[in-house]
């Protein structure tokens, strides 16, 4: 046990084994193992023989929450703490304790051995982010550690061993990985959200973008583009504004924020878009931007919509401004005055400049506290209109405050989406109508209240006779003459006052008109036949009529009898005599210091106070000597001191004077410290006859200080030892004043130890806790458990902020009392930053997903959906609560749900991407085809931590696909028909070979069928050529009329039931592809015949209009409804109701329309079901 004596504060050792092991107290399981280990058999030897630096190293190690490990001596005998155990793993722990590192790490000794040797030479070594595979949680995981090896120096400066500290960096490393994953997720979101992304390098002035952005600008897919090229494509009116915004964002002071909307014009297609660019500039330590990146969103549609909204808002505004009543709009929950007309400003009694764009209750504080706040709040939150008539409101008027009555209407002001964003207020001032009568009522009420309920006594005395005209209850009580006194002169009621000063005072006021004030005046008033001394403060005032003639006196009286009496009593007791001796005695007896008076040269106790007895822990018998009470002090030279004062008369004064006194309980000597003064007391002759001893025991303080010094010594040794630890190690005394500061701390905070030691490091570093709870919890936790661990933010010397993981623990003395604190502070800024980036990335994803017009959802690993973006909710018209978990299943088309659930279950098990097409119910109840793409989000171990998915509307494509499928089936069917004929005739031909005359006929029939098949194939080919833009034209100038006649003749030939009638002529020559145009006409004519099976004619009408020729082909057939007339020219489109009964590929009109368009003409249809159709086309002349 280390013991401190008053003359020597150095640590001395006693070689008792049980005591020497107490420095190993605590330390969890490894503490126990180390204590129970038989060290005497190792090269380190038994703990009581360990050098001090090893003691301290082990103590710090056991207290430390992080992994630490000591390899001691040339043999590298190992000691380690609980934190280090996982690093050793199940195969090396606990065998490693007490054996050589050489043995424990034999498999890598060839690598680490030389490093250990180097450390023993005094050179620290470190490895950052060293990978280890540990089985800590029942499975093998990849872990990362920063290892640092530092020498432990002996007192003589030699290296005694190696201290290894490990800092787990798995989280940091994983965070960086997560960040990368999170970026992937972001990219996916960007792809899904149809955002353009850009990245600008301010140093090279080059910028790059994703393909979408380049498409928008019309850039080729080059890698880098000069910024100026992009700026040139911004519409002129926005160009300077954008350039300014970029310049501003690149300045450090701006914070790098960039958010701007502007127009761009595609350099190739000249298509104009409105885009919103958002981004951020990144600055280096030199405050110069090195990177500037962000996204671009096409908001053309939104902007157009917004403009429309703004237009309608503008018109509302002009209505308000011109309204014949007071009107205004308050915006937002603070009710900011957004707009108000002049009448409203008049009502408020303030000019526009004082109220516009300010919260109304701030701009108009006069209106506060009248219940209006609650009303507007109610309207704002419920959206219900409030209206009331004659509402009283106090408002500024003519430099003062006046009560105003208004008829009020508060109407919720709604955004286009129906959300209440403010209040539209209408007010009509009706004060003039309402005030008059109210004022009269009020003044009457005020008067009667004043008189009757006043706590002051009040009376009105009329005439020089002072007839009591009015007296309130208080006054009647004071007078004590009952209540039936009105109408009587005052001094008739109060005859006892006639011979006093009062009649003259009152008469003076009545005559002169000068008010009179009297303080503490005595009036002897008779109450129930007894005269009572009563004191008053009085005011007499003249009472005047409307002509200022004095007609009486008013009296206000306040009775102060009790106060006056109390005051008099105190004054009476002020001059009591006191016994000086008594006082002195008392003050001696009760003094907070130990006082004794010693008489004569033998120092006989003549007087002692209680404090003295307490401080020496002894009952003093007066009349006995000091020597008799304290025989033990003679040896310590104390009697000699008393003798010296007595003989020389020189006072003895000493602070922290050590005295060993016998402990009356155990007979041993206890060390006490006193601040002591011994003074001589002389008699009248000047001889010293007595000593006055005055002492204050300060043992507690001195011992505490000595302990702190001891702690300081230990901590300083510890500091030397922890010098090379990467973490900041800060030792403090119990007031948290810094007493040690290692290199790690210097490196982390930038303060040298001289700057910190003796100061409060926590304050110097501007320590901020993450929460108020933390701030309150940490001292409590320290006191309760001796430990606290938590995160704080601190400022370095250069002002930058660092996130720090603090592990603080108390250092205890041998009695288990805390004497100092050691904080091991770790810089976790990187980790925090990575976490923040992840959070930011997450937020960015959420924000993106909330704003984009695309359905996005996420799900938990077991497939329960836990997030839907706004678009999803809008699209389905359902709330999050309705969709969450498995709720989304109700919006899937029942036929598609079974298949999806089956595949989804499979996907949940395998983690594969899932692409599935399904129909999703829209808010209006219709189902639309969507492509659902689900992707697993995995952590770095490949565990699924969630799902993210998008649903893309593919309804049109899907329908088209179905049409294509249908087409293929029709086409194959169609081709079969002529094939049938061909085949039939050829077979007949074979059967009839003997019948010579028939053969030629059959052969020609077969030929015709083959030709038809050929035509069909040609048509199909045309369609596919149009699709690929390869349809060729043979342009000539020809007689249009003749071409039409030929087509009609041709068709009439095969039409058995219809007559084709032509009206009108075109006498002009037309330039174009004659045969293609004829193909169009034949297509229209054959359609007209085909779709009018019950009709007998088809009309063709040719007209010459301005610079163009118009052709109409009219049938009287089945027709179609308007919804099909746009789609009828689409490839493969067939009117659904007719498809079953009429053959066709659905490509004839597609081809025809395309041919007309290529001739710069137009084609359209007018049709009515069961009446027929007219197909038109025009061609330029």
């Amino acid at each position, binding site marked *: 046990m280390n013991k401190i004596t008053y003359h020597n504060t150095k640590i001395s050792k006693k070689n008792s084994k049980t005591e020497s092991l107490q420095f190993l107290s605590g330390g969890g399981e490894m503490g126990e193992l180390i204590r129970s280990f038989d060290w005497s058999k190792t090269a380190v030897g038994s703990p009581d023989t360990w050098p001090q630096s090893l003691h301290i190293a082990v103590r710090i190690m056991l207290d430390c929450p992080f992994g630490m490990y000591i390899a001691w001596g040339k043999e590298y005998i190992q000691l380690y703490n609980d934190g280090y155990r996982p690093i050793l793993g199940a195969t090396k722990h606990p065998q490693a304790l007490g054996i050589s590192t050489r043995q424990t790490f034999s498999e890598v000794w060839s690598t680490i051995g030389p490093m250990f040797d180097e450390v023993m030479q005094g050179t620290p070594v470190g490895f950052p982010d060293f990978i280890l595979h540990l089985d800590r949680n029942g499975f093998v995981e990849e872990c990362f550690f920063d290892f640092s090896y530092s020498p432990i120096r002996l007192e003589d400066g030699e290296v005694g061993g190696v201290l290894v500290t490990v800092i787990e960096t798995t989280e940091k490393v994983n965070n960086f990985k997560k960040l990368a994953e999170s970026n992937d997720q972001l990219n996916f979101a960007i792809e899904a959200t149809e955002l353009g992304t850009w990245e600008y390098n301010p140093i090279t002035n080059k910028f790059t973008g994703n393909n979408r952005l380049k498409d928008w600008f019309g850039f080729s897919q080059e890698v880098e583009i000069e910024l100026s090229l992009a700026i040139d494509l911004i519409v002129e009116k926005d160009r300077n504004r954008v350039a300014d915004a970029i310049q501003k964002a690149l300045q450090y002071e701006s914070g790098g924020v960039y958010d701007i909307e502007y127009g761009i014009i595609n350099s190739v297609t000249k298509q104009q878009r409105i885009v919103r660019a958002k981004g951020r500039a990144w600055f280096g330590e030199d405050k110069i931007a090195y990177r500037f990146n962000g996204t671009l969103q096409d908001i053309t549609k939104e902007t157009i919509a917004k403009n429309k909204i703004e237009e309608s808002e503008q018109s509302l505004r002009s209505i308000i401004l011109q309204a014949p009543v007071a009107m205004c709009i308050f915006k937002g929950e603070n009710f900011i005055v957004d707009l108000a007309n002049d009448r409203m400003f008049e009502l408020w009694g303030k000019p526009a400049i004082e109220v516009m764009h300010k919260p109304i209750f701030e701009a108009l504080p006069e209106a506060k506290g009248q219940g209006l706040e609650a009303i507007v709040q109610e309207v704002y939150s419920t959206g219900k209109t409030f209206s009331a008539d004659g509402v009283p409101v106090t408002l500024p008027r003519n430099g003062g405050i006046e009560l105003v009555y208004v008829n009020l209407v508060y109407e919720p002001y709604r955004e286009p989406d129906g959300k209440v964003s403010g209040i539209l207020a209408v007010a009509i001032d009706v004060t003039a109508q309402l005030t008059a009568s109210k004022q009269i009522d009020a003044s009457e009420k005020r008067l009667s209240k004043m008189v009757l309920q006043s706590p002051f006594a009040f009376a009105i005395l009329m005439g020089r006779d002072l007839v009591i005209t009015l007296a309130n209850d208080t006054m009647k009580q004071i007078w004590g003459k009952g209540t039936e006194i009105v109408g009587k002169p005052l001094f008739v009621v109060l005859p006892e006052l006639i011979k006093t000063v009062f009649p003259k005072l009152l008469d003076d006021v009545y005559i002169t008109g000068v008010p009179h004030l009297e303080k503490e005046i005595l009036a002897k008033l008779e109450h129930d036949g007894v005269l009572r001394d009563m004191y008053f403060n009085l005011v007499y005032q003249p009472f005047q009529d409307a002509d200022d003639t004095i007609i009486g006196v008013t009296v206000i009286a306040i009775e102060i009898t009790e106060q006056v009496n109390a005051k008099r009593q105190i004054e009476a007791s002020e001059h009591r005599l006191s016994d000086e001796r008594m006082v002195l005695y008392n003050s001696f007896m009760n003094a907070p210091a130990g006082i004794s008076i010693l008489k004569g040269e033998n120092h006989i106790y003549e007087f002692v106070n209680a404090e003295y007895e307490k401080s020496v822990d002894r009952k003093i018998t007066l009349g006995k000597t000091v020597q008799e009470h304290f025989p033990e002090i003679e040896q310590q030279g104390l009697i000699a001191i008393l003798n010296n004062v007595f003989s020389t008369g020189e006072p003895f004064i000493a602070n922290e004077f050590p005295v060993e006194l016998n402990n009356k309980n155990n007979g041993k000597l206890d060390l006490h410290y006193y601040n002591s003064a011994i003074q001589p007391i002389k008699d009248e002759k000047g001889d010293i006859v007595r000593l006055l001893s005055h002492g204050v025991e300060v043992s507690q303080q001195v011992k505490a200080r000595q302990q702190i010094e001891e702690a300081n010594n230990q901590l300083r040794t510890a500091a030397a030892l922890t010098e090379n630890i990467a973490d900041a190690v800060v030792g403090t005394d119990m007031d948290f004043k810094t007493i040690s500061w290692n290199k790690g701390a210097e490196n982390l905070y930038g303060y040298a130890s001289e700057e910190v030691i003796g100061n409060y490091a926590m304050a110097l570093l501007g320590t901020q806790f993450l929460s108020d709870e933390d701030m309150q919890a940490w001292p409590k936790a320290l006191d309760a458990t001796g430990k606290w661990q938590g995160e704080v933010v601190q400022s370095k010397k250069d002002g930058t902020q660092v996130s720090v993981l603090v592990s603080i623990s108390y250092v205890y003395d041998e009695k288990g009392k805390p004497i100092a604190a050691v904080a091991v502070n770790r810089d976790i800024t990187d980790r925090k930053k990575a976490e923040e980036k992840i959070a930011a990335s997450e937020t960015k994803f959420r924000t993106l997903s909330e704003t984009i017009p695309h359905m996005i959802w996420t799900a938990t690993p077991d497939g329960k959906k836990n997030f839907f973006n706004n678009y999803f909710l809008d699209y389905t018209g359902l709330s999050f609560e309705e969709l969450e978990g498995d709720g989304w299943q109700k919006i899937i088309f029942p036929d598609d749900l079974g298949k999806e659930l089956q595949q989804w279950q499979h996907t949940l098990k395998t983690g594969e991407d899932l692409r599935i097409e399904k129909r999703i119910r829209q808010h209006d109840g219709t189902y639309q085809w969507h492509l659902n793409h689900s992707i697993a989000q995995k952590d770095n171990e490949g565990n699924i931590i969630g799902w993210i998915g998008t649903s893309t509307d593919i309804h049109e494509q899907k329908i088209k696909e179905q049409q294509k499928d249908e087409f293929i089936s029709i086409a194959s069917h169609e081709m*079969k*028909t002529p094939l049938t*004929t*061909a085949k039939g005739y050829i077979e007949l031909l074979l*059967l009839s070979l003997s019948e010579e005359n028939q053969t030629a006929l059959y052969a020609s029939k077969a030929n015709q069928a083959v030709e038809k098949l050929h035509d069909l194939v040609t048509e199909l080919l045309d369609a596919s050529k149009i699709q690929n833009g390869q349809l060729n034209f043979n342009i000539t100038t020809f007689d249009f009329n003749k071409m039409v006649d030929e087509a009609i003749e041709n068709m009439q030939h095969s039409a058995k039931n219809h007559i084709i009638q032509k009206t009108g002529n075109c006498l002009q020559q037309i330039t174009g592809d004659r045969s293609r145009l004829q193909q169009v006409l034949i297509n229209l004519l054959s359609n007209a015949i085909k779709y009018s*099976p019950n009709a007998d004619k088809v009309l063709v009408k040719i007209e010459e209009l301005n610079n163009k020729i118009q052709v109409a082909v009219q049938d009287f057939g089945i027709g179609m409804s308007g919804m099909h007339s746009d789609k009828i020219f689409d490839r493969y489109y067939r009117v659904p109701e007719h498809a079953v*009964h009429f053959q066709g590929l659905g490509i004839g009109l597609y081809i025809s329309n395309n041919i007309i368009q290529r001739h710069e003409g137009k084609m359209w249809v007018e049709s009515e079901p069961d009446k027929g159709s007219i197909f038109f086309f025009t061609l330029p002349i």
Partner: protein
Amino acid sequence: MKKVILIYDDDEEILLLCRAILSKYDYAVETLSKCENIISDIESLQPDLILMDLWIPLIGGEKAIEIVKQNQSTKQTPVLLFSANADIKDISKKVKADGYVEKPFAIITFIETIQKHAG
């Protein structure tokens, strides 16, 4: 007396071909390109067998066969579905046709099927 085969098809070439083949095998052939008046057609032409195209104005072959098969006076008349549709077998079962002839056909199969149902 020759057996009468009534063929509904809107493709003139097919009708001509069928007429040529069936005449050769000594059948009388009637052809129509619309089927909505099928009951009166049967009553006036008294066919021994009907060949019915699937896609034919105005009501379509399926509906026409259903009408024949639901009418007491005509349901005895055998009707064969006559189409290039790949699902002809299933469709003919569905509409309760007496059989089918798939386009394109071999003359020998065509004649055998017709002989089987028309006798």
